[in-house]
């Protein structure tokens, strides 16, 4: 079986990225667009576009029925969900199966298992993957108090049913426990209709490291190395890099192995990411979650391995066995990705939609830009603020940082505020260069008046 025509149920840079991968494999593309994206770059590149609803994503990009019917109605044989929107919604996989479409991603059962923290944790344990000390089914305060006493403070309370940091509470002092319980339960209930909590030890000096996996339907699974995504702000990744050279080699090898064990254990199909938290103080790593989709930062891995992950997704979904062997996966050099968002960093990262007047990308042999933007493009106010991903590769980390700085300096975007000045300042910081950072570091940096002053009034470079 091979895919003939794919419906892409997404927008922005990832829609462009998927269209290009389809084209390379001679697969036709139909792009599902909202009313706001009718004239997007991706709509122009796709063989056809079909309007699935109004700008509001709840009625368009999140509408399972519209996506599935659009795919069947335009003669597609498969659906690629990209990331975000319906990518990790098992209902789309179910709808596809019912309508004879191939869903380009893991089986719905896998998406369900991994989407539920409690189940995912149990499956990780069963595959011999270490998990953060904690408890996965806290529904009342008495139980929480017992768990807190057992694993010791500080602890983290999360909604058992969901992700994305909603309903998350940190408890450092015993006397704050009850209030945190009440807030977390209420938020979990409001967001997911289920107040059950998931409690774990809070790792304060943490790095976020994730392993890229790829599985086929014949039970074969590989890892494609890891990415270090420690630099985050409000659980949104800002800079990603690979390989995770700031983590001891021994730990990295064990994480890769653990990721493959988990993938084999759940018969993981298609591309996915196993996220780990690394405790820099104890040099331990723990399973966090599995993202059952292509990720924003996948170009880091593509740059290091030379493997086109989206093309692999398409091949595996079509039923082909993975042609690669683990020994053939080699990581060369060091890659860094910066996310360039339409946000005014000096104004609490206020979103900055609007018309892009100048858009000039850095060029060069070591530079890759994934984007849907162009001069004259109007960034709509309805969706996320990602404008572009700038990926740079070098022989080693220091060289890559240097090249990234040069590339950021060459990136000329005017008309909307962007995070470029913020990224430039981050890359100058000695802590970043030395690697002595953790997942909370950016939150601390952005409170420094000196740091923010350097970004202020520097939003649109070279403006005359």
């Amino acid at each position, binding site marked *: 079986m091979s895919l003939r025509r794919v419906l892409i149920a997404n927008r922005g840079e990832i829609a462009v990225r998927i269209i290009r991968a389809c084209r390379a494999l001679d697969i036709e593309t139909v792009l599902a667009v909202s009313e706001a994206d009718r004239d997007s770059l991706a709509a122009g590149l796709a063989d056809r576009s*079909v309007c*699935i*609803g109004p700008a509001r994503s709840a009625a368009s990009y999140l509408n399972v029925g*519209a996506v599935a*019917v*659009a795919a*069947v109605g335009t003669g597609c044989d498969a659906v690629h969900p990209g990331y975000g929107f319906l990518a990790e919604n098992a209902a789309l996989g179910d709808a596809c199966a019912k309508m004879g479409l191939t869903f380009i991603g893991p089986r719905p059962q896998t998406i369900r298992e991994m989407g539920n923290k409690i189940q995912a944790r149990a499956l990780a344990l069963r595959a011999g993957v270490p998990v953060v000390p904690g408890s996965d089914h806290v529904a009342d305060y008495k139980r929480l108090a017992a768990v807190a006493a057992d694993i010791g403070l500080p602890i983290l309370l999360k909604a058992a049913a969901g992700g994305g940091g909603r309903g998350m509470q940190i408890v450092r002092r015993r006397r704050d426990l009850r209030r945190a319980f009440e807030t977390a339960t209420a938020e979990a209930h409001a967001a997911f209709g289920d107040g059950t909590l998931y409690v774990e030890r809070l790792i304060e000096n943490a790095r976020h490291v994730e392993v890229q996996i790829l599985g086929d339907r014949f039970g074969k699974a590989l890892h494609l190395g890891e990415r270090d995504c420690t630099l985050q702000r409000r659980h949104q990744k800002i800079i990603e890099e690979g390989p995770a050279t700031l983590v001891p080699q021994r730990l990295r090898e064990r994480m890769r192995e653990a990721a493959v064990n988990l993938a084999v254990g759940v018969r993981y199909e298609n591309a996915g990411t196993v996220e780990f938290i690394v405790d820099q103080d104890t040099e331990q790593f723990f399973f966090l979650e599995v993202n059952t989709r292509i990720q924003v930062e996948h170009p880091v891995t593509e740059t290091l391995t030379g493997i086109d992950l989206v093309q692999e997704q398409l091949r595996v979904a079509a039923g082909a066995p993975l042609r690669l062997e683990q020994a053939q996966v080699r990581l060369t050099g060091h890659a860094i990705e910066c996310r360039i968002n339409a946000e005014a960093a000096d104004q609490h990262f206020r979103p900055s939609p609007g018309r892009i007047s100048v858009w000039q990308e850095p060029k060069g042999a070591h530079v890759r830009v994934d984007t849907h933007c162009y001069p004259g493009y109007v960034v709509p106010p309805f969706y996320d603020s990602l404008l572009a991903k700038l990926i740079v590769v070098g022989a080693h980390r220091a060289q890559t940082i240097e090249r990234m700085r040069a590339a950021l300096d060459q990136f000329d975007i005017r008309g909307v505020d962007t995070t470029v000045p913020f990224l430039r300042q981050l890359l100058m910081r000695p802590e970043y260069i030395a690697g002595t950072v953790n997942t909370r570091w950016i939150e601390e940096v952005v409170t420094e008046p000196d740091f923010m002053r350097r970004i202020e009034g520097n939003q649109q470079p070279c403006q005359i």
Partner: protein
Amino acid sequence: MELTVGSIRIAVDRARRQAHQVAAPLLGIFQEALVQAGARVQPDTSVAIIRVMQDDTVVKAGVRGTVLQVLVSSGDLVEYGQPLLQIGMEAL
């Protein structure tokens, strides 16, 4: 209704002459037109059915007038906002 204020009167005149297009309120499969050309409709007259999975949505005329033309056929995929029928509007 007769309006005499200049700019508003122009708007009414334009509406009188123009055909109103009933747009698909959602993407789906056009099941059938419930009216044919020549039928007189009221704003709340059901004019078509669009199906998404097992879910049928009834489309209303939205205006008073006479159906001029049904623009799509049963079984067609209709996009969000796609014109389904033309209705010649009557004067207000």
